[in-house]
Every structure is written in structure tokens, then in C-alpha cells.
């Protein structure tokens, strides 16, 4: 099979799977995208196809994460959180379906603007690539400090950089002594599922359990759809007004040039920037929602492409989170020595296969969310239990960790998840900071105490 065909098939697969996953509220991007991408990489898919898969996955997921956000008032994932306020207003006045259509149409426009813009910017930045690669250790450490400062925990995140680096290097030393080679997937899977594992650990602790104990099941409210629409594949430019489309275009363009800022931060910033100039709550909310969902797409696309094309090392919040496996998925992709999509693909390949991913995801997720949003939400809420979803994640994580390092891999993953999850939950040391520390840890420890 040619690379082209595999890319299309994988993009279709990602489009279908992630359209469905987007429906599940609260599904964390990193915890889901990292293992799925890893699977595709480890199964031996060519790099172009992996890239098309990833692009399709993020677009599909971000189009459908608007569904729980708009219809139920539950954020589809962390990126949807800034949109809740406006979405809730629209739901209160009984127009969640309009909110949804504005969001999805904004999202699709945002993604298609971001791909070429980010790619051009990345090509420009790539002249500084060697500098970044040679100083990766110190850059990751500085990034850990910077992200740590802006994380919920603030000073504690900075204070714990060295101790956490020591813990990681210690675990690494133990595991490489036993196995003869270092682990990597096991570590970042551990960081990614940390928050989930913490909830499970709390549930098993007699003293901590009351923290998350509930006496009745969660209640979800779902407003009825007022007016359905005709036609199967709607034109996003017709769903948005001209002003809204240009607001989406402008903010998506701007946010495609930023690659070091948090996507959640950019989303709220751009939404605020546009929304604050508009009079009338209906207009303000619909425009802000379209803009914000556009920005969630564009930052995601840009923050994946820029570090990937320009540097080859994960230097953005998305790259160290959900896009992780495009940079580092040993033994197939590695950052040290640099051998990943950065070295294996030309900028033109990124454009072609990125477009394949985006187009396919649009064809699958866009009409689906426009036409069947409500039915799908009811199905997920009524039929799919949360226990089964959690179980599947744990199963997949164990499988991948076992694949990398047998029982040692599983143990390392859970040790890492225990430490990282607790730090995240109780001290606000975010997952991004932990990933940065993971990447900087060998430099930090060898520089400070010598290893």
C-alpha cells in the first residue's frame, strides 16, 4: 500500500474514532491522544500517515468537544472550559444548537487557516533549529520554570523542579539498570494518566475517600433542539455572519503565530478581545464562541506544526502534551538523537498530509456534529458508562507500558503517575510542567549534582 493510501485510511480512522471520543465530556486530550498516536507509530505506520492521523484526530475531537460544551454545559475537555460562560448563556435562553453551530463553524475555519500560516512561520523559524536542539536541556528547564510560574501551583511548581527531576532520573536509573536500556513511553504515559490515577487512589484510601464521594449520580441537563436545519453539509461561512467569519479568521491567524503560549490561555484571551467590543449579548456570545473554538483549533495545529517543523523537539504546550508521540516514540521516533517527523518529512509533506488529515476530519466530524449532535449525546449519556471508559484507558496504558518495558514499564508508569498525579491534584503542578521537567531532568541532574 502506498503511503498516500495509508495516510487517507488512518485519517478516516482517526476522524471516526475522535468524533466519537469528543462526545465524551471531560475526555482529556493528552491522556487520549498520546496513547492513540503511539499505537499508530509503534504499529509501523509511515511518518506521513502518522501526521495525517494526528491532524485528523485533533480537528475531529475539537469539533465534537463543542457538543457537550454547548448542549450540556459540561466542558468537552480542558480547552472548552473558557467557552462555558457564553455556552451556558446560550443554553439558558434555549439556543444551545445555535451556539454549537457557531462554534463548530468557527473551529473548521480556524484549522484551515492555521495549517499554512503555521507552516510558513515554522520554515522561517527553522534557521534557529540547531541552536534550540543543542541547548534543549537548558531550554526545557527554563520552559519548566516559565510554565510552572503560570501554572495553578505557581511557586511550588518551580520549587519542585529539582526534586521531581531527581525522582524521574532515579526511576530511570533503576529501570535502565534492570532492563539495560532507558524507558520513555512509560514515563510520559505516567505523567499523562496521573490525574486519573490520583482519583482512583483517593477512592481506595479510607481517609481520603470522602473527598470524592458522592451520594447521588451526576445529573446532566439537555435542552431540546428547537429547530433543525435542512441539508447535510452546511457551509461554515453561511452559518457565521461576515463579521464573525472575519473575527475567526483574524484571531486564528494571530494565534497561529504563537507556539509557546498555552492554548487555553490563547482561547480565553482572543475570546475576550473580540467579545469585549460587541454590544448585545446574543451577538457577543455567538461571536465569542465562534472565535474561541476557532482559536482552540488554530493553536492546536500551530503548536504541533511549529516545533515539529522548525526544531524537531517538543517546545510548546501542545507538543509536550497531546502531540508528544510525534516527537518521541522510541524506538521509532526519538529526540535524542533527533530522528522523528522533523527529519523524516519535508515542509511540503507537512502541508499535503496535514491537509489530508484536516479535510477528512471535516468531512466526517463537521456534518456529523451539525446534524446528529443531540442524538449522539443522548446515546453516550445513556449507554456508555464511565467505568468502562476508565477501564479501557488503564488497560491500554498497561499494555503500552508492558510493551515498552514489561513489568518494569508498568511499575514505572504507575510510580510516575502516583507522584505526578498527587503533585497535580494537591499542589497544582500542571502536567505541562511535569513533561518539561521530564525532558530537562537528565540535564538538570547531571549539571547540578553530576550523574
Amino acid at each position, binding site marked *: 500500500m502506498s503511503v498516500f493510501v495509508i495516510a487517507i485510511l488512518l485519517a478516516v480512522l482517526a476522524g471516526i474514532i475522535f468524533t466519537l471520543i469528543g462526545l465524551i465530556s471531560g475526555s482529556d486530550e493528552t491522556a487520549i491522544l498520546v496513547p492513540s498516536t503511539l499505537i499508530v507509530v509503534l504499529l509501523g505506520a509511515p511518518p506521513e500517515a502518522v501526521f495525517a492521523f494526528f491532524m485528523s484526530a485533533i480537528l475531529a475531537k475539537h469539533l465534537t468537544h463543542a457538543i457537550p460544551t454547548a448542549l450540556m454545559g459540561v466542558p468537552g475537555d480542558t480547552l472548552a472550559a473558557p467557552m462555558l460562560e457564553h455556552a451556558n448563556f446560550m443554553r439558558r435562553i434555549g439556543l444551545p444548537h445555535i451556539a454549537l453551530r457557531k462554534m463548530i463553524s468557527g473551529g473548521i475555519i480556524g484549522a484551515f487557516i492555521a495549517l499554512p500560516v503555521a507552516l510558513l512561520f515554522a520554515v522561517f523559524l527553522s534557521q534557529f533549529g540547531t541552536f534550540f536542539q543543542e541547548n534543549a536541556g537548558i531550554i526545557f528547564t527554563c520552559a519548566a520554570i516559565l510554565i510552572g510560574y503560570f501554572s495553578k501551583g505557581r511557586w511550588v511548581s518551580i520549587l519542585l523542579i529539582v526534586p521531581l527531576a531527581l525522582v524521574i532520573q532515579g526511576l530511570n536509573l533503576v529501570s535502565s539498570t534492570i532492563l539495560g536500556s532507558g524507558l520513555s513511553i512509560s514515563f510520559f504515559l505516567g505523567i499523562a494518566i496521573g490525574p486519573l490515577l490520583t482519583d482512583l487512589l483517593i477512592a481506595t484510601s479510607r481517609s481520603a475517600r470522602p473527598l470524592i464521594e458522592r451520594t447521588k*449520580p451526576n445529573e446532566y441537563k439537555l435542552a431540546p433542539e428547537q429547530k433543525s436545519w435542512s441539508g447535510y453539509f452546511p457551509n461554515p461561512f453561511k452559518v457565521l455572519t461576515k463579521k464573525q467569519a472575519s473575527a475567526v479568521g483574524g484571531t486564528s491567524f494571530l494565534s497561529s503565530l504563537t507556539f509557546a503560549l498555552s492554548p487555553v490561555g490563547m482561547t480565553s484571551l482572543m475570546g475576550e478581545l473580540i467579545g469585549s467590543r460587541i454590544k448585545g449579548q446574543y451577538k457577543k456570545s455567538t461571536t465569542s464562541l465562534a472565535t474561541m473554538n476557532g482559536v482552540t483549533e488554530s493553536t492546536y495545529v500551530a503548536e504541533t506544526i511549529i516545533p515539529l517543523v522548525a526544531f524537531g523537539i517538543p517546545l510548546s504546550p501542545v507538543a509536550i502534551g497531546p502531540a508528544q508521540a510525534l516527537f518521541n516514540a522510541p524506538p521509532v521516533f526519538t529526540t535524542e538523537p533527533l530522528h522523528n517527523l522533523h527529519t523524516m518529512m519535508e515542509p511540503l509533506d507537512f502541508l499535503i498530509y496535514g491537509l489530508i488529515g484536516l479535510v477528512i476530519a471535516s468531512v466526517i466530524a463537521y456534518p456529523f456534529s451539525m446534524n446528529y449532535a443531540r442524538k449522539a449525546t443522548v446515546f453516550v449519556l445513556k449507554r456508555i458508562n*464511565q467505568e*468502562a471508559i476508565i477501564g479501557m484507558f488503564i488497560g491500554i496504558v498497561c499494555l503500552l507500558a508492558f510493551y515498552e518495558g514489561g513489568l518494569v514499564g508498568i511499575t514505572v508508569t504507575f510510580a510516575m503517575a502516583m507522584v505526578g498525579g498527587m503533585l497535580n491534584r494537591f499542589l497544582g503542578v500542571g502536567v505541562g510542567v511535569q513533561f518539561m521537567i521530564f525532558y530537562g531532568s537528565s540535564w538538570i541532574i547531571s549539571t547540578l549534582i553530576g550523574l
Partner: protein
Amino acid sequence: MTKGSMKAEETEKFVEVIGDTVSGKHLISTIMISIALSLAGFFIGKNIFPHIAPEEMVQSYSLLLGIAGSLLALLLNTFLFKPKRTLNEVPSTSDEIGEVYKKLQFDIEEERESILEDPVIRKEMKEQGIYDMFIKNEGDKRK
């Protein structure tokens, strides 16, 4: 993982895990089933594929079989247990818009003004059939 929580679960108690309520006992079962089936798939693959597949693909194919195990576990668990959520489908949102605005501390008059001023929004609202909600009947559609 220890299951010291068994005693604490008398009748109907739930724990909230990544944003949704689950039953502790069911969760333990689903996790066990899922881990077992995933790793079983992987091991079966490791034993079978060396006979039928090229050597360098054995790891990957086994991984794929493991993933199939995880998906099977998802299906099985979906049939075994019921979701612990309640869904409240409000039959009709004839919520009085003006009241909602007041509650949210927005100005309905300013809203009407901005709609009347803007032909594009007016057209959009008419197409969606929501124009009357805002303009004609003081926001009070049929109760």
C-alpha cells in the same frame, strides 16, 4: 491496588473520577477486565504470530491484538454495567428570556436595540425562527 473501600460501600455511594460519578465496585471490575483482556491479547499474539508473521512484525501485531482486547473489554463493560448519571431532558424551554437576562444581569433592552440596529443579526434570527423570542412579545413566548 488495595480494595480497602469495600466496607465503606453500603448501598448507593458513588465516587467522582475524572468528572463523572462511578460505582467503586464496578470500577474495580472494569479495570480488572480491561487489563486482563489487553494483556491477554498481547500474550496470545506473542505466542501465535512468530509462527505466521515475519519476525519484525511480531511485536506490532501483538500490540494490535492487545488493543483489540482493550476494545473488547470496553464493549463487554458497556453491556455489564449501567451508567451512573441521570439525564434531565427538559421538555420545553419556554423560559422567559427577559427573566433569564435579568437573572444573568444582562440588559434585555440593550439587547433588543443591538438586534434592531444590526440587519445581519436580524436576518439570521429570522432564519432561525428566534427573532420573535427577542423582539415581539417582550420575550415571553408561549408558556
